[in-house]
């Protein structure tokens, strides 16, 4: 499957300048695949950068080339939508390390032309932001009207405000955190071990072969998918209902609807995502701790960001990045005197609420964007 995925053509730029990485290594050049919507105005002041989540991509408002499904945030981004493409020039770039056209583990080695696999350096959220900044330089956009993202996109948004506070007016951070908790890391490690335990992973060098670690990647997705939903949501959707049968099979088929659902989610995921990219991006998230370079004091990350307007939103059923993590960011922002807004919205969908129908979120995003200008 991975080979099909890598045959898709994406709109991208290759920037022929080294990208220094947090690990101390550097990429000699970087390719960034991106999509844009709307029109950049004459004074280049209406650009909004949308940052995608772990398994997201640049197809925020346009159909996904592998699945044909509408963009992952089509309900939020578009003409007349909260992120209004009639007003804003919206850019969404595939993150560094991913598999939808930006530099990542499937990229060719400059010397041999063979896919890098695990020779691709380990990257961080900060490195993703650095690559995005290079894209904006390339596009001639010095300053963004806003950066917005949910989940890992929110981490990038926070990292943007910390690293380039003079390059954005407004930061909108949804269902996110300024660090990965032990529990977050633990779930990711389960996913990575599932991939690496799949014999078809082949040490990451599966690109040329006819085998790819789809089983491992599917299990990783199944485990992660549970963390995106709420317990109440799962109960409501599936309960203990059986899948297309009247009685338990006393076997290990997908007796329960929830099993069948997860298996489907896992398998479908392998059509649109690369296992190595999953390893690299989960690693980047696990390494994320915005306070770490500031002696463990989160406020230190924002001392230069006093003039950025922050809006943070959490969801009451999100146990992956719970409200306390957003509050921690808000406290840090308040301690440096930054203008911060925060609200915990009530929504039944768990962490996935940021992607789903939550009308209050739409109003918040529209208001926060208008406020930044």
């Amino acid at each position, binding site marked *: 499957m991975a080979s099909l995925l890598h045959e898709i053509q994406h709109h991208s730029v290759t920037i022929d300048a080294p990208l220094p990485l947090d690990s101390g290594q550097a990429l000699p050049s970087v390719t960034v695949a991106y999509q844009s919507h709307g029109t950049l105005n004459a004074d280049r002041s209406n650009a909004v950068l949308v940052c995608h989540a772990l398994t997201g991509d640049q197809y925020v408002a346009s159909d996904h080339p592998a699945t044909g499904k509408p963009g992952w945030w089509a309900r939020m981004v578009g003409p007349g939508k909260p992120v209004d493409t009639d007003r804003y020039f919206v850019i969404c770039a595939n993150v560094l390390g991913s598999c939808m056209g930006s530099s990542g583990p499937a990229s060719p080695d400059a010397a041999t032309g063979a896919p890098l696999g695990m020779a691709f350096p380990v990257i961080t959220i900060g490195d993703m932001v650095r690559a995005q900044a290079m894209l904006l330089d390339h596009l001639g956009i010095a300053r963004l009207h806003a950066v917005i993202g949910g989940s890992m996109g929110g981490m990038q948004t926070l990292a943007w405000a910390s690293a380039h506070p003079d390059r954005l007016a407004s930061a909108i951070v949804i269902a996110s955190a300024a660090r990965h908790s032990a529990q977050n890391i633990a779930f990711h490690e389960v996913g990575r071990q599932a991939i690496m335990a799949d014999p078809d992973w082949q040490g990451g060098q599966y690109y040329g072969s006819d085998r790819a670690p789809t089983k491992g990647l599917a299990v990783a997705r199944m485990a992660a998918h549970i963390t995106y939903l709420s317990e109440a949501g799962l109960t409501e959707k599936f309960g203990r209902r059986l899948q297309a049968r009247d009685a338990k099979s006393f076997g290990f088929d997908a007796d329960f609807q929830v099993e069948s659902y997860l298996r489907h989610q896992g398998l479908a995921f392998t059509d649109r995502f690369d296992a190595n990219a999953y390893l690299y991006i989960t690693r980047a998230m696990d390494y994320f701790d915005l306070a770490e370079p500031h002696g463990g004091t989160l406020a230190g990350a924002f001392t230069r960001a006093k003039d950025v307007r922050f809006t943070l939103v959490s969801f009451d059923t999100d146990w992956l990045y719970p409200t306390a993590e957003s509050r921690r960011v808000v406290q840090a922002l308040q301690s440096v005197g930054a203008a911060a807004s925060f609200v915990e919205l*009530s929504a039944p969908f768990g962490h996935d609420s940021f992607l789903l129908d939550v009308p209050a979120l739409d109003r918040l995003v529209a*208001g926060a964007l208008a406020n930044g200008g």
Partner: protein
Amino acid sequence: MALRPDLAIIAAAVPVGTRVLDIGCGDGTLIAALRERQVDARGLEIDAANVTAAIARGQSVVQGDANRDLGDYPDDAFDYAILSQTLQTTERPDRIVGELLRIAPRAFVSFPNFAHWRVRLALLWGGRMPVTRLLPVAWYETPNIHHVTVSDFRDLLRSRGIAVERAWFLSGDRPASDAAASWRAEHAIFLISRG
């Protein structure tokens, strides 16, 4: 929309260009009035629907509880703190007043005066907890857990060495005199400072 009379007094008394925190800001009505006057006004509000409405209006408002979350603001983060119609609902009004004057050198505090003659009469003749225009809820469901009078508040300020810079008293929507405030004021607004 016309501002509530106590909010109109506060809005007019905040100097242009200052930084203000409105604690218990509701849906941001006072913040909107202050921002029209080039005041950098932000808010703290406990109700998510109100916070959402304020952010949707483009305001900077944080969802939080005045009883617990004022500690997140550093000393002197603002020029003015505003606590309107909220003091009597807090768990420890004395500590809240202390917090107001920690995060800002000056604060506006407004509250319904529990010594207003209607309240006194209701208690004296009716023998029941008063239900009035400004205190419209029965004792068992009122959020007002610390009823306070103009004299009580003055005593608290005196005991803490807090100065009164100005005070306004309202009877209905009309001003009442300082001398008669204890009886005549339905509503009191104090501008206090660290003294």
